[in-house]
């Protein structure tokens, strides 16, 4: 089965590009694509892609890259970080499997996100070999994310389910990050912020993967799109726009994630290295989870 699948993929990949007579972009569909372009009744995707890509994507990302760090700086200097002692008792929260899983995803993000940003600002970097290298790295790192996102989704899904009791309260107080006080915050093993990030990155990540595969393969034909009346070129246009817009959101989210784990909660990132969280930190930031552990008698 695997062999067949591989053979099929290899076979497919040899026929992916170039102007074959039956190419779905350069082949017989070419003329209808041309005639469709910006015609009344068409999706106008060519036009939307051109306008959005040329005028909005760069400013959007630029906005994210400037405003979010500014906000963090303000928070850091005004509210300041939450510090929990790592020398005291710690609770083992993340199994080795989960940590490796997270590490894989983290490494892929470390590559994918900066290279993605560089590509969007390709003109700033002058294009050429460097940006081309980034594009290669972007593509090579993505399988890493692909293989980490599914187990991540499966193993953490249960804990990420929305629990109205805590999560709405958490949202109301913005996780307590606007106050310097250390009082228990309503949250389970993961708080609402983490949950939002999780769902965004996994589900959004799946969309990113799907669109990236489409953009990577370029020239193929999928019955499902055809049956929806989508031409391949429009599928590509939609994919590129989706990829870039969701990508920008993920960049924003990722920045929050980093800020939280490194600065906002001092040294919180270490939990993803040794798997433990200081008991105090759990007690305060994940009060419901702490109670749960207490009930189980694990603390």
């Amino acid at each position, binding site marked *: 089965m695997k062999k067949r699948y591989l053979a099929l993929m290899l076979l497919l*990949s040899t026929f*992916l*590009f*170039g*102007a*074959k007579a039956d190419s779905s*972009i*350069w082949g*017989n569909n*070419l*003329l209808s*694509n*041309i005639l469709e*372009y*910006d015609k009344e009744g068409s999706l106008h995707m*060519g036009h939307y*892609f*051109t306008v959005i*890509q*040329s005028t909005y994507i760069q400013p959007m990302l630029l906005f994210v890259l400037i405003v979010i760090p500014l906000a963090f700086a303000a928070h850091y200097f005004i509210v300041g970080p939450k510090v929990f002692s790592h020398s005291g008792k710690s609770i083992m929260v993340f199994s080795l499997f989960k940590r490796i899983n997270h590490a894989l995803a983290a490494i892929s993000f470390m590559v994918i996100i900066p290279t993605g940003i560089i*590509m*969007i*600002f*390709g*003109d700033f*970097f*002058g*294009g*050429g070999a460097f*940006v*081309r290298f980034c*594009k*290669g790295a972007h*593509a*090579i790192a993505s399988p890493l994310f692909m293989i980490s996102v599914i187990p991540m989704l499966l193993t953490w899904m249960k804990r990420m389910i929305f629990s109205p009791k805590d999560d709405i309260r958490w949202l109301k107080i913005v996780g307590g990050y606007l106050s310097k006080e250390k009082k228990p915050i309503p949250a389970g093993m993961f708080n609402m912020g983490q949950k939002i990030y999780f769902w965004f990155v996994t589900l959004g990540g799946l969309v990113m993967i799907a669109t990236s595969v489409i*953009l*990577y393969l*370029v020239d193929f034909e999928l019955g499902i799109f055809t049956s929806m009346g989508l031409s391949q*070129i429009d599928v*590509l*246009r939609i994919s*590129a726009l989706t990829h870039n817009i969701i990508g920008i959101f993920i960049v924003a989210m990722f920045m929050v994630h980093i800020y939280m784990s490194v600065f906002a909660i001092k040294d919180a990132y270490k939990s993803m290295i040794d798997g433990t969280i200081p008991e105090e930190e759990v007690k305060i930031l994940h009060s419901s989870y702490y109670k749960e552990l207490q009930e189980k008698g694990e603390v």
Partner: protein
Amino acid sequence: MGEFARLNFYCDEHRCINCDGCSVACAEAHELPEYISRRKVITMNEGIENMEYSLSIACMHCTDAPCQQVCPVDCFYIRADGIVLHDKDKCIGCAYCLYACPFGAPQFPLDGAFGTKGVMDKCTMCAGGPEETNSHEERELYGQNRISEGKVPVCAAMCSTKALLVGDSAKISDIYRERILSKGHGAKTQPYGWDVAYGKKL
């Protein structure tokens, strides 16, 4: 060519017979890899009486070239005569130009790392690229630079029925207008024999 001349392609669909002379001439002249076809001929309604027609298509060198607008590395440039060219040294092969292009003109070889798209290739209207004109580098990257030698692009030069016209848009419309206006006015010939038009002493 006037001061504001813009070079364009036009394919007369009455004349085009889908002989693929243009695309083969292009591939041959620029020594393109087989999977790249800068120009191709498309036939609509093939085999259907009174409905079949063909057109030769390549980069149309748009005035408001959308490819140039979306390119993340700004590798496109439009010459004063309207020819849209790109810099292969800058291009990263992201294919955004393809998504923006109404004509499906940009093509990508499969030579990047792990089968990623290589740098884009498209019709240059036989005008080469940013490298030094007629240099070896230009030839390797973009193919022949016939425009610099004052020649017509090879596709139009080779077109067997002169369906594919290229040049200053005003000139093209003149040629096409002449074709339309001369309809039914008889063959454009000198009569046979030598005692009619020439040969009589004035």
